[in-house]
């Protein structure tokens, strides 16, 4: 029996000011599934994540979470529905310590016990951070900041993770490690993942399905294994 969709987006139109970036995008993400979004710079990948998380308005189209329609989603509402978003560029609070950052990640949790539990679960995924809980985040390396940004999202045990280029700034050795960690998070925590990634060959190894965006429209959608063939990959992406 196919897994139910955590996220369903139909004919989504959105953009900035008067500029239409997404021109009718339809995707769906099943629970415990990783859907990769790839495409040229400016194709609308980041815009799609922002529209889903409610950071920019949806002009037209429908968005459903766990079967319920979201009329005009906003980030607080999305967090409450178990959606976490990790933007590009390892955004962390550089003046705060690692632990304080994680506390900010769990700011919507009501009890101290669930916050502590959430933080422990998040740093279990990234043991390197466990040793640096009292370091100021600004003094972490780019890769460590990226781990922290991801951990911040995990404090809330999301059902759907929106990840924008999590491999950015990571040394080659860490790229596949980070992506395998994301796969592990998805499997172990039963979390659906919608991931935008420019390191296409690496992300194909962990994604179940892939969607190619071109000029604000879906130009290809199918199982990742269909793009393992270099010729096909070049045809749809390069």
């Amino acid at each position: 029996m196919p897994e139910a969709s955590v996220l369903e987006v139909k004919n989504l139109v959105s953009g900035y000011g008067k500029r239409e970036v997404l021109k009718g995008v339809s995707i769906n993400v099943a629970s415990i599934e990783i859907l990769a979004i790839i495409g040229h710079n400016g194709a609308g990948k980041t815009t799609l994540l922002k529209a889903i998380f409610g950071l920019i308005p949806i002009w037209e189209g429908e968005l459903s979470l766990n079967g319920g329609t979201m009329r005009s989603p906003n980030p607080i509402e999305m967090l409450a529905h178990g959606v976490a978003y990790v933007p590009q560029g390892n955004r962390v609070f550089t003046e705060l310590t690692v632990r304080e950052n994680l506390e900010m990640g769990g700011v919507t949790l009501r009890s101290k016990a669930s916050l502590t539990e959430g933080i422990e679960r998040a740093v279990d995924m990234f043991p390197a951070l466990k040793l640096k809980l009292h370091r100021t985040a600004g003094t972490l390396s780019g890769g460590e900041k990226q781990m922290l940004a991801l951990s911040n999202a995990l404090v809330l045990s999301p059902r759907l993770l929106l990840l924008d280029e999590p491999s950015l700034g990571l040394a080659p050795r860490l790229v596949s490690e980070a992506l395998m960690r994301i796969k592990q998070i998805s499997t172990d925590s039963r979390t659906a993942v919608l991931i935008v990634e420019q390191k296409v060959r690496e992300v194909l190894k962990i994604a179940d399905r892939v969607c190619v965006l071109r000029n604000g429209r879906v130009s290809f959608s199918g199982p990742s294994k269909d793009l393992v063939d270099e010729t096909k990959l070049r045809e749809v992406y390069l």
Partner: protein
Amino acid sequence: MESFRCKGLSKSFDGVRAIADLDIEFPSSEITSIIGPNGAGKTTLINLLTGFVRPDVGRCFLGEHDITRLAPDRIARLGVARTFQDLKLILQVPVLDNMMLARPHQAGETLIGALLRIGVAKEEMRNRDEAIRLLRLVGLEEKATDLAGELSYGQQKLLTLACCLATEAQILLLDEPVAGVHPDMADKILDLMRTLRDEGKLILFIEHDISAVRRIADHVIVLDHGKVRAQGPPREVLERPEIMEAYLA
């Protein structure tokens, strides 16, 4: 071109040594790539060379100028420009305005110049033409009137590169210029860097994409724990088993 070097450079954060007694002279009119694991000190080195972070010990020199304690804008005026991992564009203003702000020594930027406006209009026109030329070079001419914040990350990255070029600096320090950029566009950026090198600029770039390093670097420096572990031509450095093991595996 003036030599660009650092001597005995050290920096610690929270008691952790990020850069440890570095002596480096960057070859003029060449492309030098700095590689190394996350936390090796690569970005800190660029921050030290451009005045964004003060060293605990050691000095940085541009020719005979000791630039160690100079503010970043002074160093930029001496011809050392840089890009950042987190880009640092002014997102709320148009692409073209970001470019115009990067132009150096503008007549209108002094109080007298702004009040009297002698030659300011003509200069602005020249700067605008040059900004458009550079935007064309990086493929962003059509985005000139869009807000910088409306560009995709890859496009914002190209804009930071164009801003860097607009400063007319002879030394360019680029922090991961092709990370997060589609392969087609990455090719264009690498070609552009090669052209700039051929025009006589010294380019120092941090990069994790080793294929990019192999393609355009003349010289590679491997940093680890704030120290130089290896340096030399890419075909020699990148074939060393200990480098492969520590960084590329």
